[in-house]
C-alpha cells in the first residue's frame, strides 16, 4: 500500500492506495503520526480512501486510532471518496456517526475548514 501526504489549505491530506490491513496499517500510522506531532495547533486531517480496495479490522483500527489522536488534540478528521463497500463497512461499524464522510478531497477540505 502506498501512503502519500500533503498539505492543502491547512489540512493534512493523506491518500491511501492498496490494501489497508494488518501489514499496511503501520504505514498509515507512520505517515500521519509524525505530522500530527509537528502540528502545534488543532490539526485537520483528511483520509482519501479512493484507492483502498481492501480494508479489514486492522485498517479500521488504524483509522480509528488516528481519529482518537486527532480528537485528543482538538482537531478534526474526515474520510473521503469511499467505495461502496467501504461505505458499507463504515456504516456497519457505526463510524459514520463520528467520522464525517465526504465525496471528494476538495469537499472534505472545505467541509473541515468550514467547521462542518
Amino acid at each position, binding site marked *: 500500500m502506498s501512503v502519500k501526504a500533503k498539505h492543502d489549505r491547512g489540512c493534512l491530506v493523506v491518500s491511501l492506495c492498496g490494501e489497508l490491513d494488518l501489514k499496511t496499517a503501520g504505514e498509515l500510522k507512520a505517515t500521519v503520526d509524525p505530522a500530527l506531532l509537528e502540528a*502545534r495547533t488543532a490539526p485537520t486531517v483528511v483520509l482519501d480512501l479512493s484507492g483502498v480496495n*481492501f480494508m479489514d479490522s486492522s485498517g479500521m483500527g488504524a483509522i480509528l486510532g488516528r481519529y482518537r489522536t486527532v480528537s485528543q488534540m482538538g482537531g478534526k478528521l474526515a474520510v473521503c471518496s469511499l467505495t461502496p463497500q467501504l461505505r458499507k463497512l463504515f456504516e456497519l461499524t457505526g463510524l459514520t456517526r463520528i467520522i464525517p464522510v465526504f465525496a471528494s478531497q476538495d469537499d472534505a477540505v472545505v467541509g473541515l475548514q468550514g467547521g462542518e
Partner: protein
Amino acid sequence: MMPAMEIDEYQRNTYASLKKASGDSGVGRLSGAAVLTSRTICSLVVSAIGSLQGSAVHKWAWAVLLGFVSSRCTVVVETGILAKSLILAAGIAGRPGMTGGIAVGAAAGFLLDGTALRHLPRFLAFFALFELLIRALNPLAAKIRYGRRGLVISSGLVCAFSIRVVHGLIGGDGITALPIACATAGIVAAVGVLCGEALSAVYSVWEGEAEASSLLDMRRNETKYVFTLITVLIGGLGSVAAGQVRPAQVLASAMVMVAAMNYGCAIGALMGSVAGIGLVLADVQHFPMVAVYSVTGLVTGMLRGGRHWESLMLGTVAGMTVCLLLDQGCRAFPVDSFIHLSIGAGLAFLIQIWFSHLLVDAPAGTAEGLPARDGRVHMDSARRRLQSLSGVFELLASTLSEAGEKHKACLTDGFDILLQEAHRRLCDNCGKHDACWNSRFFASYDAFLTIFAELEMEASEGTDHAGKRRRDSRIPTYLRQHCVNSTRVVPVVAEILEAKREELAALEQMQGAKEVISSQFRGIAEIVDRLIEEICSGEESVIQSGASQVEFGAARGELGSARVESGAARGQRGRPRSVDVGIYCTARSGNSVSGDSRLIYDLGDARTLIVLGDGMGSGETAAVESRFATTMFKELMVAGMSQRSAVEVVNSLMLIRRKDESFSTLDIAVVDTARRHVEFTKMGSCPSYIKSGKRVRRISSPSLPIGILPGLDFDTVKCAVYPGDIILMISDGVLGPGEDMDVIDERIIEYLGETRRTCPREIVNELADVLKMMMGAVWDDDATLIAVKIP
C-alpha cells in the same frame, strides 16, 4: 370428671375451701391480693397508657386519676398497696413526674373514702420516705447494681417494709408484723416492676423511640411484660359480664389465637396457659380454661402458614373438644365456652387483618425457628449496609461527573487571566507602565485583546509555520507606536496561548478519565443494587447442572457445539430448558490464533448469554483484546450489572487499558427461554439473523466498537423468539472483504430461509461451506458463526 352439680355451687364450694385453707396466713392473703390486683391493675394501666398522649399537664392529670382509682383497691386488707406499686412503677419507667400525680390522686381517694382515711398517713409516709430515699441516693445510683432501676426498686422495698413494720409495731401486731411487711414489700415491688416494665415499653412506642412491632418481638423482655399485662387485664375483667358473654374470656381467646397464628404452636400453647391463669386469678372457677386455651393455642399454631380462618376454626373446635371432655355436668360450661371461643376467633381474625403490619413475621417459637429470625436480622443488617455502599458509589460517580463539568465551566472564561500573564511578562517594571495602563488603559486593553483574538483565530485556521509569517504583520499600530516591547508581544502572547491550550488538553484528558471512573462507580452501584434486590426478594439465580460456560479454542476450522442447560429460577415449574449451540470458527490465513472470541454462559433464570467479540486486527493481539472484552462483559453481567452498564464499563476499561489502539466489537445476545425473547446489543458488530421457519429476520444496530470513545451511543434490540427458532451470529470475517458484503448477506438470508436443518451444528457447518464456496474457499479474515436453537 367432676360429679354433676351446678357450676355456681362448685364455685362456691371451691372458693370456700380455698378460703378456709388459706385462713389468715400470708399465703391466703397473697392469694387474695393476687386476685384483687389482677382485677384492678388492668384498668389502672389502661388509664396510664391513655395518659401517655398529650401535654405534661394532661399526663399529670391522668396520673392523678390513676392514683385516685388505685386508692380504691384493697390488697391484703390494705388499701394503698396498689398506689404504692404505681409510684414505684413510674420510677422504674423513668417518669418521676408521675409519682406526684399518683400521690395526689391517691391522697384524694383516701380523703374521699372515709373508711380508707386511716390508710392516708401510712401512704403519705411511704411516699415521703420513698422520695427522700430517691433524692438522697440518686448520686449513688451509678454505683448501685442495675443503676437507677435498682435504686427505685430497693427504695420501694425498704419503704414498704419499714412503713409496714412501724405500723404493725404501733398497732400491736408484734412479731407478726414482719411477715405481713415482707408480703407487702414484695407485692409492692413485684407489681411495681411489672407495671414499670410495661409502662417503659409502652412509653417507648408512644414517644417514637421504638417501633410498635418491636414490642411483639418475643425475644425482647418487654414483650413478656406486655403479654403479662394483657393477662392481668384479662384477670381484671373477669368479673365483668355482658349478658352471657364475658369480655375477659373473649379477650383471652383472641389473644391466644393471635399469638398462635403469628408465633406458632409452642407460643400459642404457652399463651393459652398464661391466659387461663389470668382468668383463674380473677375467678378460680375458670381453672379448666387453662387446658382449653392451651389446646386451642396448640392446634391454632399447628396450622400457621395456612389461611387464617382455617387455623381459627380448627383451634376453636379443639378448644370446644376439651370443653366437652372437661364437662362438669353443666350445660352452661360448654355453651359459654363455645360462645367465647367463637367470638374470640372472630376478634382474632380482625386483629390479624388490621394489625398484621405490626405483627412480626416471626417463626414458631422454637429453637429451630430462631436461626431463621437471626438470619433475617442479619439479612436486614446486610441490606442496610449494602444500601449505604451503593449510595457511596453513586455519590462518588456523581461527584466525579460534576467535578468535570465544573472544570469545563472554568476553562471558558480566562481572557483576563491571560492578559494578566501577558501584562506580567511584558509590562512589569516597564517605565511606560503608567502611561499605557493608566492614561491609555482602554487603548492598551483593546490592543492586547486584538492580538489574542487574532493569534487564536490563526491557530484554529492554520498550522504554526504558516501563520507565523502573518503574525508579525498583525501587531496593532497602537502597540507599534507606544509599546517599547512591541517586538516581544506576539511571541509572548503565542506562548501564553500555547500553554493555555496544553492546559485545556490536559484538563480534558483528566475529564475523560473522570468520566470513565465515574461510569465504573455507577456500574458498581448498580451491581450492589441488584444484590440488594436479591436479598430482599429472596430470589436466587440457580444454575442447574450441566455446562454453564462454553468456550472454544481458536484453531483453524475447529468445529464445536455445546448443550447449555439454562437455569430455572426457584419456584418455577417445569424442567429446565436448554439451548443448543453450534459454533464454527476459523482464523485468518496464516494465523494460528483467531482474533474472534466467543462465550456462551448460563446466567440463570432461563437466560443464556452469547457474546461474540472481534478484536481490531487479527492474530494474537486482536484475540487478547476480544477475549478481554468478552470475559469482562460476562463477569459484569454475572455480577448483576445490566447490559448497558456492562458495555459502558468494558468500554471505559478498554479506553484506559492501553495507549495504542485497543478496540473490539461486541455482539451480545441474551436469550430468555422462559419469556421467549432475545435481546441484542451490537457494538460495531455485524448483523444477526433469526430464522423462524422459512422467515428470516435480520437484526442490525450500528454503533461504534468499544474502546474508541468515552461516551457510547447504542441501542438494544429485543426480539420475540419461538420454539425451534435459530439465532445466527457472525463476525465480520464471514461477510468478506467488503465488495461481496451485500451478496453474502443475501446468501445467508436465503440459506436460512431454505434450509430444513434444525441442528445448530449442522447449520453452521453447512453455511460455512456455502459461504466459502462463494468466496473462493478462502476466508481472509478471522470468521466465526454461532447458531443457537431456541428450545
